[in-house]
């Protein structure tokens, strides 16, 4: 496939799928006559998007801030955890199984404790987002660290490279594509984390709060509009990260392209 066709298809195909789904949705509502209190039509959602754009944007600002900060916290802790697990068998044995198990804990049950410890406001929300994002970042970074060719480390030893130099010159760069993949997965999870966090910590703003409020007010069109903004933000974040990945790690892309030739 030529690259221009490829690029067009990149935008066109998901757009067509979306249009098709919207068409089916609208048709279903027209035919079945289901109440708009249960399921609003795409038409009504679009109208809510336009009418409430001010409110939506203001609350998006708040949620976006939470998400970006939450991801950054998760990256810092996740990266350090991955390196420690990679370096020390002791840490791996002690931490890794618990880390996996902790992912099965529904965050809802943590909300009261978090609020108790951290009070209401931004902090418990950041913790929830960071918790959601932490795991994918650890796993993919660790994967990157573990793909390092042991022969390469042997070679570094014949150059008298210290453990730190081996890490800095070989292991760390090898782990970067994994870390970026982890952040991309985390970005998508973080949106759900933000909604949970805002609802559980009783936040007074943000898209999660808006979802709660519109639900309580029986405004399904506005509720769906909020979800649209959330999804749109997740896609935007993902695309931005993909662009950043191409910029920062061109070599990883070159290798992929050569392999797929």
């Amino acid at each position, binding site marked *: 496939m030529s690259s221009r066709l490829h690029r067009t298809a990149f935008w066109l195909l998901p757009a067509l799928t979306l249009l098709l789904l919207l068409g089916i949705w609208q048709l279903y509502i027209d035919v079945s006559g289901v109440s708009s209190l249960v399921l609003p039509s795409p038409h009504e959602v679009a109208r809510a998007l336009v009418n409430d754009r001010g409110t939506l944007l203001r609350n998006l600002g708040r949620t976006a801030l939470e998400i970006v900060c939450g991801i950054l916290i998760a990256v810092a802790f996740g990266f350090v955890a991955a390196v420690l697990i990679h370096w020390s068998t002791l840490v791996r044995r002690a931490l890794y199984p618990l880390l996996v198990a902790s992912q099965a804990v529904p965050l809802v049950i943590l909300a009261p404790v978090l609020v108790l410890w951290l009070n209401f406001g931004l902090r418990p929300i950041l913790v929830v987002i960071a918790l959601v994002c932490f795991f994918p970042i650890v796993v993919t970074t660790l994967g990157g660290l573990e793909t390092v060719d042991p022969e390469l480390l042997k070679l570094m030893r014949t150059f008298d490279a210290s453990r730190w130099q081996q890490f800095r010159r070989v292991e760390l760069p090898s782990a970067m594509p994994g870390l970026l993949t982890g952040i991309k997965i985390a970005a998508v999870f973080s949106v759900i984390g933000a909604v949970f966090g805002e609802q559980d910590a009783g936040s007074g703003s943000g898209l999660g709060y808006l979802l709660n409020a519109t639900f309580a007010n029986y405004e399904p069109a506005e509720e769906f509009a909020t979800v649209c903004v959330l999804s749109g933000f997740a896609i935007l974040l993902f695309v931005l990260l993909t662009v950043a990945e191409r910029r920062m790690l061109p070599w990883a892309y*070159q290798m992929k392209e050569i392999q797929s030739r």
Partner: protein
Amino acid sequence: MIKLEGVSLVFTGRRGQEGVRALDGVSLEVGSGEIVAVVGPSGCGKTTLLELICGLQTPGSGSVESEPAALMPQRDLLLPWLSAADNACLALRVRGVNRADSLALVKPWFERLGLSGFEQTRPAQLSGGMRQRVSFVRTLLAGKPVLALDEPFAALDALTRAEMQQWLGTALASEQQPRTVVLVTHDVEEAALLGDRIIVMSPRPGRVIADLTVPLPRPRTRTDPAVVALREQVLELLGAPV
């Protein structure tokens, strides 16, 4: 200067059981500036021999003495995120030489080996022969008196390999202080073209079955009757059908 005396090495298998016996009583002395080619069938412990010389393995019994050695691995093992020139600098950078000085040291070697103009190219976009040359420059600039070359050209096509063997001969000769070289290969012709001595090893467990001195001057050609005769002699020692 390298000296191995009665070196044996057994790799322990899983659960501590007796594993693979890689080397069995290998004694070998290599003088400074000598080029020694080690030939033998696959799995005869040739790579293990180099790892012992480079200090990456310790012998089970016997002793290994060697001046510091730099390894050129079988696969080029270049770092995909670095440019060709930065890859060639790697050993220098590890030693604490700054980037500008390292690049200045790399430059003449790139010119000599036909890599000029490819300094900024990443390994994925270089040909196999070019990657091997970059890897060779990296090994050379590690500044060790001993070069341990592990089948450096095994992965190349016949034409490129012939070309590379030729420049390896020239490159080694063009250095101010000649290096001690241990060249492991399963290509008997390569050994006959490049070695001052040829060490022939037996199948696993590896033992030295012959130590031939090659009195021919370099550069040698593969059609030289003396080279052909040497090649046949080594093949016979390895048990190839005549």
